[in-house]
């Protein structure tokens, strides 16, 4: 009796709140309401999806990765190549992009099992660099440093053509983001997701209560890779272009920043971070197009020195600093 009458925390955290519904409705309406900004809405959706995928491994599983762009780029290139050589349908291309990135993630998940944070950092970074070299050197396939050009996308679902103003692209990206988000929400809210959090908090104890740590890490990494592949595929499809830039180190660093701005270990963190980051990037690069990385760097330094939990939660600025390690860390 006493056990049954307690609200199930796991179930309660999975329930959709009213503000989430409102938020998504607003997001889906935004390309129509702000039609002149549809391009940036599209970019925000892509970055949000990418940050969401990083959150699965960084926020929920505790793997520090500096090479997440590997999967992003894999998704982008495979979606672009598929559209160019096989068929231009976006949804099939999306599935291909997710598929290849997932396979790559499954292969790479063996490399992140052992060692310290530093080892994982190095290995993930190395995978990203290897893929970038591959894309650079296989120029007969990828166009090398010039990028893969001439990708023509068909209409979404056979009806909606991508237009110049990016409205369709924004809707398409937002829908994919929503689908992945719902799936990711199920994923991290499930008992499986709870075991991931247990691994993040204390791997030794998680092992001691019988959680198969290695396979859980592998699955989480693979899933995150697939989601990152979806983000990459979105970028390639909506821009009709894939270049080496998708594998660049700064993309991995940026997405980490995005996630940290919004809050780690919270699925909306990626979305909020993407919104803030893109608007900030747009604003700063309007003022100083060449040196905006300086301000991003300054922002990062200040963010860490002030404490990232405090910066994203303004109501803690003036209260005493009691719970320093609280939040998502």
């Amino acid at each position, binding site marked *: 009796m006493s056990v049954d009458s307690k609200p199930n925390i796991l179930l309660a955290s999975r329930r959709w709140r009213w503000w989430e519904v409102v938020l998504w409705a607003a997001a889906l309406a935004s390309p129509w309401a702000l039609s002149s900004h549809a391009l940036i809405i599209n970019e925000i959706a892509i970055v949000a999806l990418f940050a969401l995928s990083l959150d699965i491994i*960084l926020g929920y599983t505790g793997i*520090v990765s*500096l090479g997440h762009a590997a999967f992003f780029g894999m998704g982008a290139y495979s979606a672009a190549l598929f559209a160019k050589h096989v068929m231009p349908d976006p949804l099939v291309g999306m599935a291909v992009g997710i598929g290849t990135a997932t396979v790559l993630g499954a292969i790479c998940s*063996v*490399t992140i099992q*052992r*060692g*310290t*944070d*530093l*080892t994982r*950092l*190095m*290995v993930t*970074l*190395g*995978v990203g*660099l*290897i893929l970038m*070299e*591959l894309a650079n*050197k296989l120029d007969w396939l990828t166009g090398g440093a010039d990028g893969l050009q001439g990708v023509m996308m068909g209409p979404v679902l056979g009806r909606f053509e991508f237009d110049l103003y990016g409205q369709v692209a924004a809707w398409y990206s937002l829908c994919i983001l929503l689908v992945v988000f719902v799936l990711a929400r199920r994923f991290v809210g499930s008992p499986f997701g709870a075991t991931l959090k247990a691994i993040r908090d204390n791997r030794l104890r998680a092992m001691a209560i019988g959680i198969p740590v290695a396979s859980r890490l592998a699955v989480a990494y693979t899933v995150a890779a697939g989601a990152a592949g979806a983000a990459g595929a979105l970028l390639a499809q909506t821009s009709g272009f894939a270049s080496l830039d998708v594998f660049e*180190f*700064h993309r991995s*660093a940026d997405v*980490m*920043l995005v996630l*940290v701005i919004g809050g*780690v270990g919270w699925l909306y963190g990626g979305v909020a971070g993407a919104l803030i980051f893109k608007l900030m990037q747009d604003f700063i690069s309007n003022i100083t197009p*060449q*040196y*905006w*990385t*300086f301000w*991003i*760097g*300054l*922002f*990062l*330094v200040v*963010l*860490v*020195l002030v404490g*990232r939990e405090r910066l994203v939660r303004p109501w803690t600025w003036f209260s005493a600093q009691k719970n320093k390690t609280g939040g998502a*860390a």
Partner: protein
Amino acid sequence: MLTILFDGIAYGMLLFILAVGLAVTMGLMNFINLAHGAFAMVGGYITVLLMQRLGVPFLLCLPAAFIGAGLLGGVLERTLYRPLYHKPHLDQVLFSIGLTFMAVASVDYFVGSTQQIVQLPEWLKGRTELGDGAWMLGMGHYRLFIIAVCAALTVALQYILTKTRFGSRLRASVDDQRVAAGLGINVNAVFLSTFAVGSGLAGLGGALGADVLGMDPTFPLKFMIYFLIVVAVGGTSSITGPLLAALLLGIADVAGKYYIPKLGAFIVYSLMIVILVWRPQGLFVRKGGKA
């Protein structure tokens, strides 16, 4: 073939000098410092600017680069790095990436994004060749100079680390910070001086390498991975580990780029991943130290 080996050794020695500071600070403070390359860049730019604008001779620029980068490292350690020692690794990574971005953009702003050229003095420009045929050994004088300087530094470092009082304090602090502090070692002072010297060495490496590696604002990002490979593969508990790792990396990189230019960087990165998956703590780990 011997020439490639020679160039590889020179390159590896250079990488060692660049990365040894990182190895020590990482082992000492368990701090993942991705901004180490920025100090090397500072040293490189000090040399380039002193030589170009003020006409200071090359040999005088090297100590200037060491001192400049070391001072900067000391100041930053005291002001920015110290509060972060006990933060999670994610914070440290973010912080040091931020610092690197700032360094890259500032140098771009103040000096410009073009690659800087170092005018080497005449006596370093030549090249000596020994033997002939497949076993010919061609030694660029500058590379010979690099090897000599780096070898001298390595011996000096090894001596300081193993024979002096400061060295034993440093090793004690690396092994167990709390016990070392309990024994009356001023760990903060050890940290500060080690960080400053490590940054200074990076600056010196940057100055020496300005000609070989090329000096432009993206230097810290381009070579960050190399420094980290040296540290991750070599381990952080001694300086012989990073030295061997740096030599291995230098030779593998030069040989890879020479024999199979199409695969270039793959060899290095794949080798690193294989080694790290095989031995996650690095190839040359001393038993008994703190993990």
